[in-house]
């Protein structure tokens, strides 16, 4: 792996606070780390520790007070709103805890909504079968279970074949079994399509399936570990 690929994503002295005066809260207090290309990276930390804030800044939908994020050498802070939108469009896929599907489009169409954005999308039907949604292709979101909806949401992000797949607590609303399935799918995509994955979670157990684990607390990086002995998602337990 080249030096550039190792520093595919670089976070430098990132700071962010909310509110003013008495109510001022420093959420990120100088964060530094790098993620290399193709890595499965997990951001770990208790609720309220600033994981989502960090992810949103990386995703270009929030801005830091100081410090910078650079991807492939491009600094986000040098981009205007339009350029940021194009950056997200070309390079990022998003999966949230809530599935946020378009209610009056069916499964296939919801995935097409993602494919439309990409210059080199994956085949929609391949993605559907990878996610095990063949039988539900023409169903509408309100006809699906939570786990199925989350699969569609992952499909929508993955079909773009994004450089980085951003997942913010994708299993947060799901039960144990379904959560493991979903994690398996993300792992599968990471291996199959080679996307870099950054996944936010508060679930300690998930660290074992990652290449790279970054632990946050009180706005700073507490641990920054490379995991040599990762295990498949299906073998996780909590």
């Amino acid at each position, binding site marked *: 792996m080249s030096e550039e690929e190792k520093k595919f994503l670089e976070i430098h002295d990132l700071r962010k606070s909310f509110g003013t005066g008495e109510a001022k809260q420093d959420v990120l207090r100088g964060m530094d780390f790098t993620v290399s290309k193709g890595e499965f990276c997990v951001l770990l930390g208790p609720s309220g520790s600033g994981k989502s804030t960090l992810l*949103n800044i990386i*995703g270009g*939908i*929030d801005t830091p007070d100081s410090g910078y994020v650079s991807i492939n050498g491009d600094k986000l802070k040098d981009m205007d709103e*339009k350029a940021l*939108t*194009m*950056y*997200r*469009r*070309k390079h*990022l*896929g*998003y999966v*949230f805890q*809530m599935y*946020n*599907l*378009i*209610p*009056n*489009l069916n499964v296939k*169409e919801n995935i*097409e*909504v*993602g*494919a*439309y*954005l990409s210059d080199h999308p994956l085949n929609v039907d391949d993605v559907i079968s990878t996610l095990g949604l063949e039988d539900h292709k023409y169903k509408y*979101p*309100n006809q699906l279970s939570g786990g199925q909806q989350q699969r569609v949401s992952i499909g*929508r*992000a993955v079909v*773009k074949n994004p450089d980085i797949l951003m997942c913010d607590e994708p299993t947060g609303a799901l039960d144990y079994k379904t959560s493991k399935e979903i994690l398996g799918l993300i792992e599968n995509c990471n291996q199959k399509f080679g996307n870099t994955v950054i996944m936010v979670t508060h679930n300690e157990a998930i660290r074992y399936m990652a290449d790279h684990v970054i632990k946050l607390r009180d706005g700073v990086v507490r641990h920054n570990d490379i995991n040599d002995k990762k295990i498949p998602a299906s073998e996780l337990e909590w």
Partner: protein
Amino acid sequence: MKNPLIKRIPKELVGDWQKYLVIVVFMVLMIGFVSGMSVGRDSMLAAINTGKITLKLEDGSFEFKNKASEELIGAIEKGDMADVREYLINKGYEEADEEVAKAIDEELEKQVTEGIETAVRAQCEAYGITDEDMIQSQIDTFMEENYEDALEEARNSDEFKEAVSDAYKEAHEEVVKAVDEKWDETVEEYNLDDPDFSPVKVTVYEHFFKNEDEDFDKDGVKDAAVRVFKSTDEVDKASFNEGRAPEKDNEIAIDRMHASNVGIKIGDTILVGGKEFEVVGLLSYINYTSLHENNNDLMFDAFGFNVAMVTPEGFDSLRTRTHYSYAYFYDVKPSGKVAQADYADKFLKALITQSVVFDNDLEDFLPECYRQASNFAPSDVEGDAAGTEILCYILIAVIAFIFAITISNTIDKEASVIGTMRASGYTKGELIFHYLSTPVVVTLIGAAIGNILGYTWFKEVAVNIYFETYSLPNCGVVWSPVALVKTTVIPLSLMFLINLFVIVRKLQLSPLKFLRHDLRRTKRTKARRIPAWSFMNRFRLRILFQNIPNYAILIFGIVFVEVMLCFAFGLPDSLNHYGDRAPDMLFAKYQYMLAGTKDDDGNELVTANEDAEKFNSTSLLYEKNVTSFIKGRGSGGTTEAVTVYGIEDGSKYVVIGAELNDGEVYISSAFKDKFGFDTGDKITLSEEFANKSYEFTVSGIVDYEGGIAVFMPNDNFISVFDKKEGSFTGYFSNEEITDIDEKYIATVIDKDDIVKVTTQLMHSMGGFMVVAQYVLLVLSAALIFLLTKIIIERNEHSISMVKILGFKNSEISALYMIPTAFIVLLFTLLGFGAGYVILIYVFRAFMLQMDGWFTFYMSTKSMAMSIVYMLVGYAAVSVIDFIRIKKIPMDEALKNVE
């Protein structure tokens, strides 16, 4: 790849089909109506414009009291102003010469007679004859034998010749002096020294007519006035809608509008001036597209007035007096309104001065550009189209706002989806485009269907409306690209811009805010204070606050519809009210205007009728000083025709104050109300055809609403207007005058003349207003339907939630429907009040532009109805709303959690 979001649009349309159906139907009707009106109008105007050329519409007309001599016509055609000074001097000379000659003859006769008598007496004395009888007989004998010779001799004497020529010279000098003394006045009166004057050459055609009584049911009672012309090929021709021109002297062709209004058909015989005529043709004269009897009539009257064509022989067989009317064409056509006015001005100067020097009286002058009967229809057609367009655009704007609110709610609902889409790289532009598509598509569908219907069905409706109002020449469909723009581009742009504005504002927020459902644009620091009412009422107040944009549009819609309802109910009411009071609007049951005051034998026209009372009247103009939005429409616009009456002392028909000085007058209450005059105010009135004005002081008000009038004692009238002692214009009488031959009667004004305005207006608008009332009822229901639907949909979640909590449907409905009911009721009442006040002002402003006066009136019943209609619309929607609320499932609150 096509944007997959497009697939949402048909699903959205199908999924919410009731709403979109209501909207599309709405737009189709409005756009169809406007497009139909536009096409109808364009076709109509095209027919009129072609007709102006092919049917040889005059450039103007004038009327003389007596038939014009060939020399007069020749002089008029040249367009020169006559030499009034020479004429006045010559006329003075003639009169003076006559007087001088008479005086000289008398003097000469006296001298000769005296000379002879003196000579005879001297001789008698010489012969000693003293007997007076003898002397007298001598004188007589001598006188008989020598008088003529003596007279002759005296005439030839140099002395006498000198005296005579002195006398003539002196008299002529007197004449010139008198003319010169009054010259400044004369110059001003006829505007003689206009440096800009240049002759306007014209070609003049005889266009004589007679005003006859028409009795179409032959019961011996006059049914209408008919103006009869001879058939002509030269000017103001007619287009035949049915039948043919008269060929025999007992055949007649009449106006087709009048015929259809009163039910005359081809083959019928009617009485015109007491003589039987067979109707052989139904026509429309190009100079009478609307049947205005007089140019300053407020409204045309296709019931009580008719125009007709007979053969020249038929014309001669009619007994009433001939109106010596002439039509003319300018040799070089003026281009544009300014040139038209300028031409008319110059031509009038020639006309007046020539009529003076040819000893004729100019009775009437009307350039075609001021002619109501040929300009009213096209400008009305145009005005209607403009009016409906504006109404249509207002309603489209309302729909656009309804869309905007719906979309704005959808955006709120879909906030996290939007956030996700934005986060994954959808641009703002793509989303704006997406949310704009539905209103634009719906408008396109509405415009497409609307235009198709407009060009086919609605066009027929519009053409029929106009054909049933005006005597228009036959027409074909004219396809106009302008109409297409107005009915497609404008609604589309309105829809596009209003929604664009709202959507852009809405989507301005960052993706993160969407993801966090944080859609407030400004942070409210404090929670809204809500009074310490019961829980239910506080809840209702919250619903009101939550839905402020909805309620704003609802309120606008209600007020708008309510104002329109006021109009739809108030206009017929105002007309009827005016009609009901018409009998009170006459001084006397009959008001006879005579053509002259003497009959053919030179005797004064008198009546044995004891009820009859002489009066004098003349017509002056009042300069209105209003900024006019329909300037140049007929004679209306900048001047108002004012009738000035001279009233006999102790009149039983018009009561005015006892002692009025010259210049002090009473005015009619209509005059007072229209222009806001009061006692003590000064008013300036001017002559129509001469540059002369009068100032009067208002000393009192005569309670008379029938017209704009000024009253003064007859003696004052005679001195102010320089009339001959004892002259008069006509009679007031409560009983019909039967002993004056009708050929001396110019017009009779009775109740029908007053109500004809409102009869005609009722005919052309009454039916339309009833339709409008129902349309508005549906409109109000549709508006309330759309807006309450939005409010309920927005609250589906919480409605479902309170259902789970155990509230009953009726309780929930009361919770959500009472705020709306309250708003609807409150603003219906306010809207009614606003409409009533607005219409009073609008009526006033409109009438200020027109001749005449009547005010807005609404009966209590109509007031109630205009409110009830709105509430009926609301009641219907409430039922639907109740069902809607009942149908919201309880699991709505549980599923689709975001």
